[in-house]
């Protein structure tokens, strides 16, 4: 089954057309990196795939489920890690995980939560309120969430933004784990160097159209 199948997807925001007639397929086990200049619509496309916005025209399916008509079913199997951390300041790390997974209909046990927090290096802060977390720690908490949720499709919006070296390593490690269990990863990014370490395919969104890249082309400077 194809992980993401996009046909003739278009999005217009008010009077401005952002992109038009995008069509592409992504298969399970792939890591797709979407590049493009600022304002090209990368985040918009990602948010449409995350079912947060509806396309203006065209359709897409995620593992066979229509992204607009069967939104709720799609939401069970995807996870979005975006700019906002989706964390509540007054709750502790463990409580935030319980809430986030509770919303998804999952109920991890406390030992499972502890294990996930340990794996991302913040096990000691399980009961600390998010108000006192640094940005890097919040990112790691996002990944702990992914480890517990085990989504079939992981959507990442500029994951390498403002990350230090350790953060980048953890990000790529997490992506690799997702790919290893036959999950799929779709990310938007500016950072060609870091992304090409892990991406298997790529594309450039520019001028409202998508140019697909193969894995060899990803490492060639000339394309960018």
């Amino acid at each position, binding site marked *: 089954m194809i992980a993401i199948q996009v046909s003739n997807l278009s999005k*217009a*925001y*008010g*009077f*401005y*057309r*952002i*992109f*038009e007639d995008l069509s592409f397929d992504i298969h399970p086990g792939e890591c797709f990196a979407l590049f*493009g*200049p*600022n*304002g*090209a*619509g990368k985040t918009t496309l990602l948010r449409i795939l995350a079912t947060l916005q509806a396309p203006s025209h065209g359709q897409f399916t995620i593992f066979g489920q229509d992204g607009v008509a069967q939104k709720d079913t799609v939401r069970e199997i995807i996870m979005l890690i975006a700019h906002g951390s989706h964390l509540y300041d007054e709750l502790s790390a463990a409580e935030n995980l319980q809430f986030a997974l509770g919303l998804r209909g999952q109920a991890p046990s406390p030992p499972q939560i502890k294990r996930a927090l340990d794996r991302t290096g913040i096990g000691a802060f399980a009961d600390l309120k998010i108000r006192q977390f640094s940005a890097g720690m919040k990112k790691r908490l996002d990944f702990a969430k992914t480890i517990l949720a085990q989504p079939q499709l992981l959507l990442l919006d500029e994951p390498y933004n403002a990350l230090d070296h350790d953060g980048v390593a953890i990000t790529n490690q997490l992506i690799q784990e997702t790919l290893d269990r036959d999950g799929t990863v779709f990310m938007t990014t500016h950072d060609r160097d870091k992304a090409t370490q892990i991406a298997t395919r790529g594309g450039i*969104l*520019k*001028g*409202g159209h998508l140019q697909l890249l193969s894995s060899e082309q990803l490492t060639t400077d000339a394309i960018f």
Partner: protein
Amino acid sequence: MINRIIRQIQRYKGWFGGGAALCIFLGLYIGLLASPPDYYQGELVRIMYVHVPLAHTSTLAYSVLFFGSIWYLWKRDPLVDNMCQASASICALFTSLALITGSIWAKPTWNTWWTWDPRLVSFTVLLLILGGYIMLRRLVDDPVQGGRYAAILAIVGGIDLPIIKFSVEWWRTLHQPMSFSTRGVSISEDILVPLTLMSIGCWLLFAYMVMVRTQILYLTDLLHAKKGRFLSQTHFSQTTP
């Protein structure tokens, strides 16, 4: 590629406009000049020829807005959204005029500009809801999201308005035992003819105004869509040397 309905509006709107003008002209002539004054109210009853049709039309306009909003949430047709937007502003106009003419009638009759008459209060709340609707549309940047939110407001308002009317009526029977009623006018045959003419005229006028405004809104949206540029293209061409 202009919508089929817009083409039909273009073709038939003249008939509605003409019919409205005819009915209103005749209605006003008979009502204001040719018909006899009322036995009880004298010349004052002539305001009723304007006030009552305006009030009816305002209710009609809100019904259009209400059902149009349900239809829009169901089918998401942008033309229906344009029609809702048009209906709302025109309903606000008719409601304001109804309130003003009602107030003008009330002053000489009851010696007060304002009274807690259930219909007057209901119409005022209706005007407030419409005001909120118009403000809401202005404050949302994405027109599709704005249309959706406005439809939600119109639907909740439509269900609420009968309840508001009941509650104000009950309240008034408690607090003003000497009830005045705007139904004080007894309907005689002389009154019926101009009243009917004015009512039909106002309905036709409403239909005409909604058609024209919907057409304008639709064509404006179409024009903007055709003029639209790709965001990235504009931006990109500005950043490359």
